[in-house]
C-alpha cells in the first residue's frame, strides 16, 4: 500500500562546494545516495535516518542533513511522532522497534541537582597537585574486621573476605552484547577497559574465545535469560559474573536479535545455529521468585569456586528498593540498577519510552532502603542508564551508588550519533552492525583510544569536582547527600532523593 509517511530528514547539498567525489555514496549505509544514469548524484531522502556519516566524511563539508521542515499543523498533543507512529502501524500492523534510550522529555533529575564546593570553613583540594583517589572496590564487604594485632606494622586479618572488583575509576562499560554491537566495537571496549584499569561487560552475547585470555581479567560476563555462550570456561575466565534480570530500555520484556545479524561468528560465540533468531526470553526461566535468584547466584559461585563477585542487574521500576533488598539478601554482591534512559540495540519503542523510572530516584531509594535495613555494606551499587557526563557520575555516587556503567556515552565516544536505527543492522559507523563492510570502518585500536580519552577526561573532571568539595577519596563521596542540593524540585522529590533544596 502507498506509504503516507513524511520523511524524517531532508538532505541538502551546497552545490558550489561539492566536488563530486562520491564519498557520500560510499559512506551512506542506508542507500540515500546513488548515481543516476547520467552520473549525477541522486538523493533519496526517505531513506535518510540522520546518522550524519555523510556530513562528517564529506571532504568539502558540502552536505546538510536536518529534520524535515515539512510539518503537520502544530499540535502539542497529537505530535508529529505520534501521528507518524500511528500511520506506520496502520501500514505494517507491527510493533515499532527502535534503538538507543528513552528520548522523551521526562524530568532529568541530574539537571536539577547541584554540587557543593568548600570554602573558608574547609579547604578545597587541588587535584593537580595533591592526591585525589578514585579507586573503588565493588563487591561484598564484611561488617567488621577481626584482626590479630602484633604491633602497628604487623597485623593479621582473620576475617574471610569476599572477592571484590578493583577499578581505578568509578566508571565501567555497560553490557553491550557482541551481536548487538560489532566485533570491533566489542574489542575496543575490552581494550580500553584493560588499558585504563576498569571493567567492561560482555552483555548477553557471549565472550569470543580469542579475547578471553587477554581481556578476561577486565570482563564482567553476563548470564542472561538466553544463557548464550555460558560455559564454565566463560564464567571462570572473567573477573565477575552478572545475572541479567532486566534492563532499563525494556524492563519486563526479552530481547531479539534478528537472524540476519546472527553470522557465523555470532553463531559460534552464542552457540546457536547460524541464521536463527537469537531470542532472549523475558524472565530467566529458572527465576520465578526471589529464592530462585538465590539458587542461581550460589550456582554461579559454586561454578567459579567463590572466586568472583556475582552481580545482579535489574531495571529501575516502581518497587526497586524492595527488589534490591531482596536481591542483597539472596546473595548478590553487586546490584546494577538500569534507569529508564538506558540504551539498547533493539526494543519496542512503546516499552522504551513508557516503562521504568529515573535512575536518580532509584539509586536514592535503594541506598536508603538498604541502609535502613542495615545491609548497605553487603553489596555495591552500580548506577546505569543515561550517564551523560562526569557531573552525572559524581551526582550518582553522592546519591548512593558505588560506581556507574556507561553504555550510550561509550558508543558516542566511538562515533555513534544517536540516530536510533541500531536495530536495522546498518550502522554506518560500524558500531551496531554485523555487515563486514561496515564493521571494518571501526578500527578497534582507534576506537579504544577514544574510549580511553573519554575515561581520562571524565576522571580528571571528577577529581576536580571532588577537590572542589574538599574530598580526596571517592569513598567519602558515596552516599554523601549533604554535598547535593536541589533546584526546581518539589517537596516529595527532595524527600525521595534525600537532599535539601538549594539555600536550605
Amino acid at each position: 500500500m502507498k506509504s503516507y509517511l513524511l520523511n524524517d530528514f531532508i538532505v541538502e547539498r551546497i552545490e558550489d562546494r561539492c566536488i563530486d567525489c562520491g564519498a557520500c555514496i560510499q559512506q551512506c549505509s542506508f542507500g540515500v545516495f546513488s548515481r543516476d544514469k547520467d552520473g549525477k548524484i541522486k538523493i533519496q531522502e526517505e531513506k535518510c535516518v540522520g546518522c550524519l556519516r555523510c556530513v562528517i566524511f564529506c571532504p568539502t563539508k558540502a552536505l546538510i542533513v536536518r529534520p524535515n521542515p515539512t510539518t503537520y499543523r502544530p499540535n502539542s498533543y497529537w505530535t508529529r511522532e505520534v501521528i507518524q507512529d500511528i500511520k506506520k502501524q496502520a501500514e505494517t500492523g507491527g510493533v515499532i522497534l527502535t534503538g538507543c534510550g528513552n528520548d522523551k522529555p521526562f524530568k532529568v533529575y541530574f539537571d536539577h541537582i547541584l554540587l557543593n564546593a568548600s570554602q573558608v570553613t574547609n579547604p578545597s583540594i587541588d587535584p593537580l597537585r595533591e592526591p585525589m583517589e578514585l579507586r573503588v572496590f565493588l563487591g561484598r564487604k564484611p561488617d567488621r574486621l577481626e584482626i590479630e594485632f602484633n604491633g602497628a606494622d604487623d597485623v593479621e586479618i582473620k576475617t574471610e573476605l569476599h572477592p571484590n572488583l578493583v577499578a581505578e575509576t568509578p566508571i565501567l562499560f555497560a553490557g553491550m552484547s557482541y551481536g548487538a554491537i560489532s566485533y570491533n566495537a566489542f574489542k575496543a571496549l575490552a581494550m580500553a577497559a584493560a588499558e585504563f584499569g576498569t571493567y567492561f561487560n560482555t552483555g548477553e552475547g557471549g565472550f569470543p574465545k580469542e579475547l578471553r585470555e587477554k581481556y578476561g581479567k577486565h570482563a564482567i560476563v553476563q548470564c542472561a535469560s538466553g544463557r548464550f555462550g555460558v560455559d564454565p570456561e566463560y564464567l571462570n575466565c572473567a573477573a565477575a559474573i552478572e545475572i541479567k534480570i532486566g534492563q532499563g530500555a525494556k524492563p519486563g520484556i526479552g530481547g531479539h536479535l534478528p537472524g540476519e545479524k546472527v553470522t557465523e561468528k555470532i553463531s559460534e560465540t552464542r552457540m546457536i545455529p547460524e541464521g536463527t533468531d537469537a531470542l532472549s526470553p523475558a524472565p530467566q526461566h529458572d527465576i520465578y521468585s526471589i529464592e530462585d535468584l538465590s539458587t542461581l547466584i550460589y550456582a554461579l559461585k559454586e561454578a567459579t569456586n567463590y572466586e568472583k563477585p556475582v552481580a545482579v542487574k535489574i531495571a529501575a521500576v516502581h518497587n526497586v528498593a524492595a527488589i534490591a533488598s531482596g536481591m542483597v539478601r539472596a546473595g548478590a554482591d553487586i546490584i546494577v540498577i538500569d534507569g529508564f534512559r538506558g540504551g539498547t540495540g533493539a526494543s519496542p519503542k512503546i516499552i522504551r519510552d513508557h516503562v521504568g523510572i529515573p535512575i536518580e530516584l532509584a539509586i536514592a531509594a535503594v541506598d536508603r532502603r538498604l541502609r535502613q535495613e542495615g545491609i548497605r555494606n553487603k553489596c555495591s551499587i552500580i548506577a546505569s542508564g543515561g550517564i551523560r557526563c562526569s557531573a552525572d557520575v559524581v551526582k550518582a555516587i553522592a546519591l548512593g551508588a558505588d560506581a556507574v556503567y556507561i553504555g550510550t556515552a561509550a558508543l558516542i565516544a566511538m562515533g555513534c550519533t544517536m540516530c536510533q536505527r541500531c536495530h536495522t543492522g546498518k550502522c554506518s559507523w560500524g558500531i551496531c552492525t554485523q555487515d563486514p563492510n561496515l564493521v571494518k570502518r571501526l578500527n578497534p585500536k582507534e576506537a579504544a583510544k577514544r574510549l580511553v580519552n573519554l575515561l581520562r577526561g571524565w576522571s580528571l573532571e571528577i577529581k576536580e569536582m571532588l577537590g572542589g568539595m574538599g574530598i580526596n577519596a571517592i569513598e567519602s563521596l558515596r552516599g554523601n547527600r549533604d554535598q547535593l542540593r536541589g533546584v526546581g524540585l518539589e517537596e516529595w522529590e527532595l524527600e525521595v532523593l534525600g537532599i535539601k533544596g538549594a539555600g536550605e
Partner: protein
Amino acid sequence: MGRRTPEKDIQACALFGVMNKLGKRFGCEMVVTALKNMKVRGNGLGAGYAVYGLYPKFRDCYALHVMFQDGNIEAKRAVDRFLNENFDVVDDEEIPTNPEANVVDPPLLWRYFVIPQKKGKDKVLSDDDYVVSKVMYINTKIDDAYVFSSGKNMGVFKGVGYPEDIAEFYMLDQYKGYIWLGHSRFPTNTPGWWGGAHPFSILDWAVVHNGELSSYGTNRRYLEMFGYYCTLYTDTEVIAYAIDLLMRKQKLPIEVVSKIFAPPLWHIIDHMDEKRKKFYTTLRMVYGPLLLNGPFTVIVARHGEMFGLTDRIRLRPITAGEVDEYLFISSEEAAIRAVSPELDRAWTPPGGEPIIGRLEADLDEVLPSQ
C-alpha cells in the same frame, strides 16, 4: 530521618589535652592556661573540658551530666522518672556553678550517679550498651533534656563562653583528674546552645575536634546501620560514635583505627611490601565509609588512654610534648610551652599517625576511692 537535618555546625577551634601517665591527679590550671594562650583560635561562643578521675567517691557509678534547656522543669521531671525506672540513682545534685562567671544563658545543669538496673530484654545488654541506649533515648525523646556526659569517674563540663569563663562557671578548680581535655570554639552558626560545645562524649569517651568533615554525610549514614543516630548535627558526634563502634565494640586498637580514619594514600600503599599492602588495602576496602575526609585534628580520651590524630594530608595542626610523666597534645606548641616552658621532647607526627598516651600503671591501683 529525612532530608530535613538542620545546618551542620562548623568546628574551628583550639584543642588541648594533658595526661599524667602514672595516673597522678592534678588540677585544671594547665589546661586553662593553655587555652587562654590560644585565645584567638576561638571566639567565646563555646568552650569545654573533660576530666578523668574526678569522682573518686562514686567511681563505680555512671556519672550522667544532664542539661535542661531554659531550665525546663517538666523535662527534669521526665528525666528523673526515666532514670529512676531504669537505674539505681545513688546520688544526684545540681552541678555546682558560679553565677558570677561571664557566660551566656546557662541551662539548668544536673548530675546523677547511677548504676544500671536492667529488666527483661535489656538483661542481655552489657552495662555500657545499656547506658548508651538510655542516653540515646533521653537525647532523642525527652525535649529540652540532653545528657552530655555519661562515663564512670569522668565528667564533661561545657557551655557558651570563653574557656577561662567556663572554667570559672563550673568551678573547675575543685576537681582533680589524671587526664584533662580542653576545647575553645569558633562556631559559625548562631550560638546559644550549650550542647553544641565540645567535648562530645558518650560513655567514657571524650572527643575534642578542630576541622570539618566533608565526608560527614557518608560517615553518618554508615553509623546509622549500627544503631548510632546522630542527633547533634556536629561532625564531632560522628567521630565519637565511630570510635565507640571500632574501639569499644569491635575492639580494634588505636593504631588500626587511626588508619581507618586517616588511611595512607594508594600511591604509598602500592609501594609497600605485600603484607602491609594487603592489610591497608583490606582496611580501606572494608571501612571506606568511615574514612574521615576533610581537615581535622582530634584529641580523644578514655580511662587509661589519650590520643591525638590529624587527617591524612594534615590540613590541621597538632603538636605533642613530653616532660617527665606528662604528655601534652595541643593545636599549637606555644600553648604547651605556656604550661611547661621546658620539655623533654616536642614533635609533630605525619598526618594519619596517632600520638598515643597510655597509663603506665593499673587504673584501679592508681585511682583513689576517696
